[in-house]
């Protein structure tokens, strides 16, 4: 029903009226950005997924507060960041060990449960753990979501030059850590 031709502003307006298809398009369009923001903070795939879903529901519930619907993604990212922050604080209070992503994923045929992929993911997360949160956010959005520096800058509320710097630093650090995997 809705597609790339529809602007975020249109989808937000329709979602405010309770249009499920419009909200679904918003979810599909921006869930990965929210997820990557949460992952940058949590370093845990499953927890980041949970937080992303919470952020999407919170965004729907507060949709009337979104003053610039054309910048819905940036607004959603702020919600995801806050949710991730709260999640981390809650977990810290509970003093539990980091959640084991593998344990939380159901289904044996899930490609995410593949052993070699699990190992690769662990290596990546360890390497990414040496970066700052901003660097992780920037490099995720650049590498996984495929956004350009200017787009990332707008989403994160940073200057394009800063984003360029964060991406550059993050990529260099990752290449050093993962040299064996990616073969620089």
């Amino acid at each position, binding site marked *: 029903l809705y597609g790339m031709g529809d602007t975020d502003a249109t989808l937000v307006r329709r979602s405010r009226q*309770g249009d*499920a298809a419009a909200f679904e398009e918003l*979810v599909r369009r921006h869930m990965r950005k929210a*997820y990557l923001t949460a992952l940058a903070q949590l370093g845990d795939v499953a927890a980041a997924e949970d937080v992303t879903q919470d952020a999407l*529901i919170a965004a*729907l519930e507060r949709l009337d507060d979104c003053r610039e619907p054309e910048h819905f993604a940036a607004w959603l990212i702020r919600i995801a960041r806050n949710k991730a922050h709260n999640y981390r604080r809650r977990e810290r209070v509970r003093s539990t060990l980091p959640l084991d992503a593998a344990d939380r994923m159901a289904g044996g045929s899930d490609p*995410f449960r593949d052993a070699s992929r699990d190992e690769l993911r662990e290596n990546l997360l360890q390497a990414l753990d040496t970066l700052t949160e901003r660097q992780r956010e920037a490099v995720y959005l650049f590498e996984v979501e495929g956004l350009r520096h200017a787009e990332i800058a707008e989403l994160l509320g940073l200057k394009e030059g800063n984003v360029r710097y964060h991406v550059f630093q993050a990529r260099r650090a990752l290449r050093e850590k993962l040299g064996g995997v990616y073969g620089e």
Partner: protein
Amino acid sequence: MESDELKDRIDLSALDPFVDPVRRDDFVAHTLERAALELARRRRYAADQARGTGISIFTVMAGWARPALAAAALAVLVSGLALRLARPHAEVVAQAGVIEALALPTPVEEWVAEGRTPSRADLILTLEGGTAW
């Protein structure tokens, strides 16, 4: 510089659960399931608004304004009428009440009621407890 980076990407797809379309669709379906109540609430509200029956505090107040004003006007009318009818009786009652409270002798009560100034003889007779009256 950006184009160089774009050509030479680092593969972080292992961290992206949504690469798998089944997993992505499951996530979306579950999210929509959780959103169903809120979406339904919004549809109801939008339908109410379209019918012009949107409920807000101002709508409720506006709805009550006219009957409340009518009731207030009626209350003023009835109260005014009641006061006007009751006033003379109330004055007599009040006057009688004061005289009784002072426990004045009967002749004095009559002087007060008639608004008459007592003569010297009246006073002497009254103070002596006489029965000139």
